[in-house]
């Protein structure tokens, strides 16, 4: 690693920190732009009770002071109490939901990467043959189908019609469909990515040299081509995570998975503002950090790439 790479990494980390700060600030001020402030319920409350509530949550202080306090709290992972789920802290709801969502997301990510790379390599090797055509048609269809449509149709087929798996996610078997739903889009995307970059690599001079030296076919693929053609796939790591996070919102809603996604969605409909703020910031930080790791990895793996 030379000094230029280190400088790039330092710059990238600074941008990530700045982005997180922007997210927190935007979330805070957007929430306080809600008419009546974030802590007003639908039920009419007497002015005295309102005052007590505001004092309790520090809402009677100037906005900027509230902002500084909130910023300090967020740094300690303190997002305040939930409005609608009495006695629960937002951070507890988040960690609780993450237990399920993390399992879902990690399995989906690994499955899609594994299947996608294998399918992509097969498609590239059998270019313009029947297998390639079928893989490309199927992945094109998957890429065009919104996750909520995919999830609903899977639910309809496998659980409502054929009763193969339970419709709700109380048991591990109930997690199969949500994982498949989450994994299909990234899988299709990775397949296409691997295929095109594999084709690109197979046209390179060093592959031709290897072939001319008499290296066997499989050895070219696994020894020479695969590693280099996986670099573009690596860059998809960050966007894939962002997709899985946002996808999990609808997927958890469809399959009623008790994860962070369904907590977020129900907090929106219930207008549980501290929970909305906390979850947004938490998920945003997750995505920003993952994008940061992806970018740095990319730079480290392939120093030829100029990211500026």
């Amino acid at each position, binding site marked *: 690693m030379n000094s230029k790479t280190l400088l790039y990494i330092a710059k990238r980390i600074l941008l990530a920190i700045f982005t997180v700060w922007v997210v927190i600030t935007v979330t805070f001020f957007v929430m306080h732009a809600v008419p009546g402030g974030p802590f007003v319920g639908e039920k009419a409350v007497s002015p005295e009770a309102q005052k007590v509530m505001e004092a309790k949550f520090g809402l009677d202080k100037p906005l900027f002071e509230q902002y500084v306090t909130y910023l300090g709290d967020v740094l300690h992972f303190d997002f305040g109490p939930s409005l609608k789920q009495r006695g629960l802290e937002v951070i507890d709801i988040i960690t609780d939901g993450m237990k399920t969502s993390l399992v879902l997301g990690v399995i989906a990510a690994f499955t899609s990467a594994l299947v996608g790379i294998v399918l992509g390599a097969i498609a590239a090797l059998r270019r313009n043959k029947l297998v390639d055509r079928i893989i490309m048609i199927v992945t094109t269809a998957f890429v*065009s189908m919104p996750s*909520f*449509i995919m999830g*609903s149709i899977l639910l309809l087929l496998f659980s409502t019609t054929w009763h193969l798996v339970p419709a709700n996610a109380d048991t591990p078997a109930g997690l199969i469909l949500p994982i498949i739903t989450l994994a299909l889009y990234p899988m299709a995307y990775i397949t296409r990515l691997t295929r095109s970059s594999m084709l690109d690599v197979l046209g390179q001079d060093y592959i031709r040299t290897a072939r001319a030296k008499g290296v066997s076919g499989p050895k070219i693929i696994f020894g020479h081509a695969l590693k280099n053609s996986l670099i573009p796939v690596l860059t998809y790591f960050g966007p894939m995570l962002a997709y899985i996070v946002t996808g999990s*919102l609808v997927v958890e809603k469809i399959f009623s998975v008790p994860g962070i996604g369904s907590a977020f969605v129900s907090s929106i409909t219930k207008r549980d503002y501290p929970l909305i703020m906390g979850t947004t910031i938490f998920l*945003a930080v997750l995505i*920003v950090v993952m994008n940061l790791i992806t970018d740095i990895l990319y730079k480290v793996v392939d120093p030829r790439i100029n990211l500026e």
Partner: protein
Amino acid sequence: MQKKHFTFHVDLDAFTPASDEEKEYLVQMRPSSTFFRDGVKRLLKNKVAFVSFIFIVVITLSSIFIPMFWPYSYDDMLGNRPGEPADMSYNNLRPFEYSRTEQALMDEGEDVMPHIFGTDAQGRDYFIRVIYGTRISLAVGFFASIIVLVIGTLVGAISGYFGGKVDLIIMRLVDIIYSLPDMLMVILLSAVLRLTLDPVIEHTPLAAVGSNIISLFIVFALLYWVSMSRLIRGQILSLREQEYVLSARATGAKGGWIIRKHLIPNCISVVIISAALQIPSAIFTESYLSFLGLGVDAPMPSLGSLANDALNGLATYPYRLIFPAVIISLIVLSLNLFGDGLRDAFDPKLNN
């Protein structure tokens, strides 16, 4: 005449008038093709893109014109006619079923328009709701991409043209917006904006559009222009340095000519293609938000909210999910395929 080398005598043969045979070479055999015509020809050859285009045209026209003459409307609860007792038999009709009132009318020999897709739980004709939802989704996608196009082009052009500090500041801003998790920000903004917007747009023509759709447009205007402006900036920066621009300048071309003849034709295809590819992504976002309950206001349907509503009765009325699901997937797919076809046909750098 013997040719004398090393003299300055001019070869007179070179100055004889051209024979008719020689003139033939200069005759235009066919009119020269323009860039646009070339592209259209290539596009027509691309069967996938062509079929997608036909599909888009058909679905757009039918979403515009069918509601004009269809006897039912999207928010008309057929069982609740003023002055008549509520007829519950209108609710939850299966495709091509009729309610009691309609059955009685038909027995008297009157023509009743069948409910092709049945009716929903509130007795509204489902076919016209799906058509209307398609119209909403297409319109949102179209206008959102125009917003993105205008803002992105403007900012990108300013950034690329002025360069220096302006460019630096704009590009840092773009970097930050780019690294924001867009979907989360969209959800957050649309969850809050509609509450703020409702009192503002009350009693204005905008109220008819609904605060949710307006907040969707605002979100697009705030967040989604960045990739477009990056693209335009890159285009302008690289085009400015091209040799043909230099040679045009060297032969005395004025700025206006260079912009009209060289910069715009080379830039416009990239802009249009990325705007075309923006439409499906906007439709995607709108349906996603509608599915979460953050999209269009009820009773207005969009394909996403129809799919969301269909989840409740999935076991009994699966077709209510299938119709909007198939249409939205086909629209997104064909717009993507058509956009790819446009890129293949019109991007001069990809031409062989």
